């Protein structure tokens, strides 16, 4: 079961970063590969158990379920319900921690999933680079946080 772990430091205070990330339905506003997103059944995006249905720029439709949301730990977890990409049993965890030295933010993003045999490396790279590292760069730009802190 491939495991992808990526982490970075964002040059903004943690409250600012968490405010953006805690909105499970906000990713179409800052992640370049997401074109639109909606929470099903009119629920709010901070209701644990809610499902976001979104489209990538290439038209693919995905659905993800919010498993955990914690303002105390500044962390959330979610799993993939439907996706045209063969990622099975995909569960991801995001957590932030303050970097007190400089009032910055440490961002940790990881996931485990199954893939068709032989495609582990390709899909792990897709997740790690396009989704996670792409996400770091996108949020950094969205917050006006310059280059890697």
């Amino acid at each position, binding site marked *: 079961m491939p495991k992808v772990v990526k982490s970075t430091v964002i040059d903004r205070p943690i409250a600012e970063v968490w405010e953006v990330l805690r909105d499970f339905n906000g990713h179409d506003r800052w992640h370049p590969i997401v074109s639109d997103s909606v929470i099903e059944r009119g629920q709010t995006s901070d209701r644990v158990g809610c499902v976001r249905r979104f489209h990538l720029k290439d038209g693919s439709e995905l659905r993800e379920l919010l498993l955990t949301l914690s303002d105390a730990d500044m962390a959330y977890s979610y799993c993939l319900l439907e996706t045209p990409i063969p990622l099975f049993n995909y569960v991801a965890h995001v957590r932030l921690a303050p970097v*007190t030295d400089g009032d910055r933010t440490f961002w940790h993003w990881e996931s485990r999933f199954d893939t068709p045999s032989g495609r582990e490396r390709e899909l792990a790279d897709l997740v790690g680079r396009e989704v996670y590292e792409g996400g770091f760069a996108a949020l950094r730009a969205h917050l006006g946080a310059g280059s890697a802190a």
Partner: protein
Amino acid sequence: MPRVYVSSVIDAPAARVWERIRDFNALPRWHPRIRDSRIENGEPADRVGCVRDFHLQNGDRIRERLLGLSDYDMFCTYSILESPMPITDYVATLRLTPITDGDRTFAEWTAEFECDAAVAADLVAGIGQNVFQAGFDALKRQLAA
């Protein structure tokens, strides 16, 4: 219960930083406030339960017990057995986490303890700045890429 939390980024791979700090008896080698140290009863410094007996540069003596150590999760947890500070039940953890972006290290140092409410703020500030941040500043200098 007063709590100290100090964190920083060290510009070196986590494995290298861990190598430097994992030795429970090596504070004098990397922390500018510590003058000398020894492990009691000649035990290995990575034997969980061992006690380090050390002196600060100003002569103050402190004894601390190793409660936990992980080469996998890169953390070390210890408690203070004796110190000149007006505190009890002091437990601290020093933990490293890799920052994959740039192959650097996120370092966190936390402590919880009991003390009189009147001295809590000063102790938190003092430990946070003079022990924890001073330690991180030293590591940054010593390991700068």
